[in-house]
């Protein structure tokens, strides 16, 4: 089990790797991958009971990344978990590589093929329902974008998950307040999100999506018995790199050499603090 500082150190390493992978591939969803990095860090290093060895076990916890475009964050974390050598990420988006720009099950550790939005929550509702039918104790997690919530299929699943009292299901919204066109509240407002999901019958908690402690506490166990959990993670798109933060243009922009160097410098500066405490 990692200490808080070790975990914070990992987030910085992940951000470094995400940017490098995107730069090498010449493609990627930079802003969204950086906004969900801490969420994935906490899930895979503290919460999910899944390893490369247990990945085919029927009782493993499941994670489905519904906002599939932030795949670089997922691939980097899966590599760190040992699902495949991180060197393989050098083939991202290249001819013949399984590492395409959205999650596919050809990549070890990926549960479901996603990328079209509004699919993760229905699938996870089915997984959680199956778990309940079997009396299994695995938990199911899915990560949604805030812009993604405009897809109607989410709300069909929100009804069903509450109807069946699926407390083994946790949906997380990477609420970075931006989407490709601009601020989510201007494109298609989904607020008030807490009230909406609460009215649908979900247990809801809002956390700072970059506070590893708050995330850990929110994911540690279901928020309520007999209800599905919704964790609204308030995040910053492009988190960790000053000139990418809250900039809609960085939704899927690839950094040039100079930008990458500056971004890595910023991360390396931040790395020094937690790394001191490591030993």
């Amino acid at each position, binding site marked *: 089990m990692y200490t808080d500082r070790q975990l914070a150190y990992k987030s910085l390493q992940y951000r470094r790797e995400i940017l490098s992978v995107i730069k090498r591939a010449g493609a990627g969803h930079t802003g969204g991958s950086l906004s969900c990095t801490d969420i994935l860090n906490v899930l895979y290093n503290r919460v999910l009971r899944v390893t490369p060895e247990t990945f085919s076990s029927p009782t493993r916890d499941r994670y489905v990344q519904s906002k599939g475009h932030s795949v670089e964050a997922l691939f980097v974390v899966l590599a760190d978990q040992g699902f495949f050598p991180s060197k393989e990420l050098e083939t991202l988006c290249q001819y013949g590589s399984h590492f395409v720009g959205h999650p596919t099950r050809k990549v070890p550790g990926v549960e479901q093929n996603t990328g079209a939005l509004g699919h993760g929550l229905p699938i996870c509702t089915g997984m959680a329902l*199956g778990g309940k039918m079997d009396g299994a104790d695995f938990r199911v997690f899915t990560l949604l974008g805030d812009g993604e919530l405009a897809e109607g299929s989410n709300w069909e699943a929100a009804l069903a998950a509450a109807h069946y009292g699926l407390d083994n299901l946790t949906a997380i919204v990477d609420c970075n307040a931006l989407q490709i066109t601009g601020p989510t509240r201007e494109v298609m407002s989904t607020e008030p999100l807490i009230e909406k999901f609460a009215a649908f019958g979900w247990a809801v908690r809002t956390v700072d999506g970059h506070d590893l402690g708050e995330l850990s506490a929110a994911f540690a166990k279901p928020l309520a018995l007999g209800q599905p959990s919704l964790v609204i993670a308030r995040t910053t798109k492009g988190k960790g790199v000053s000139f990418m933060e809250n900039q809609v243009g960085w939704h899927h922009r690839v950094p040039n050499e100079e930008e990458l160097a500056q971004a890595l410098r910023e991360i390396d500066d931040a790395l020094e603090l937690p790394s001191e405490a490591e030993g």
Partner: protein
Amino acid sequence: MSAPAPPIHSVAAQTVAAKLGLKLGRPNLEVFASTLLELASADESIVVVTSDSRGSGKLVPFAKALPKQIVEVGIAEQNLVGIAAGLASVGKKVFAVSPACFLTARSFEQIKNDVAYSANPVALVGISAGVSYGALGSTHHSLHDLAALRAVNNISLVVPADNFEASEAVRCAAKFSAPVYLRFGKAPLYDLPEHKFEFGCSRLVRPGNDAAFIATGETVIHALLAAQLLEETDGLKCRVVSVPTVKPLDIDAVRDAASVCGAVVTVEEHMVHGGLGEACASTIIQGNGYKGRFKIVGIPDEYTVPGSQADIFHHYGISMIGLAETVRGLLKR
């Protein structure tokens, strides 16, 4: 909720059916539901998912007998398919049951991604398919489903022609470890000759080399009656091939019919674009080339004529008389 409909077969056609000794069976939907109940009673991993469709799916007895093996999602077809995919991914043998018109149009992306691309072995069951809901209008017709799903990788398409094929198709789907689409109608069906079902293979219902009918689903009986009529009136021996698996297609049987028979007529309860007919056409042309006579009978690309399934079949020549006339016309050319 269906309007009263005239019989699907004319008096003349019923006479020919009687002469062939054919017995009228049940609607395939009922066979599907009773077969599934039988299988699920012995296998608790079998789960049915419905979208307020258990009544039209004839699944009320299933729900009564096996309440723990049926999941209701309400009127939400996208969610139906997503939930089915999730259930399948955790080890359930899932039959997702919804009217074919909604299942394959509204949830098309869920079928493409969550079932086929993610390789979750769901059996999608399109009920009241084709123009089974004839008089309810085009919103309730599924004349696009085979075309749409043929264009998706990693899903098989099964369209049973009689109770035997329906029962075999359900048994096969229950054992299948890959996605499959089953298509069932509401009309009682005659039991066809030659009980042989092998996944991916066609069924030779009647031999003959003067012309061939290659047909699927509820249209096969009309082809068989036409073949009998053509023998009586014109002395023609027509082959009748039932194609329960539209995908994968029995390529050998299709190419054999094209190379041996004087004309090939395909018949389907589907738009003439993208269904069985075009699958056969491309198979034949990409074989050794083909200079023979070929005709696709189905619903043309137009505003479908209003009426019951029987009316619509009759209107577009999916009938004993209509199909016999099509063969005569082709052979005259």
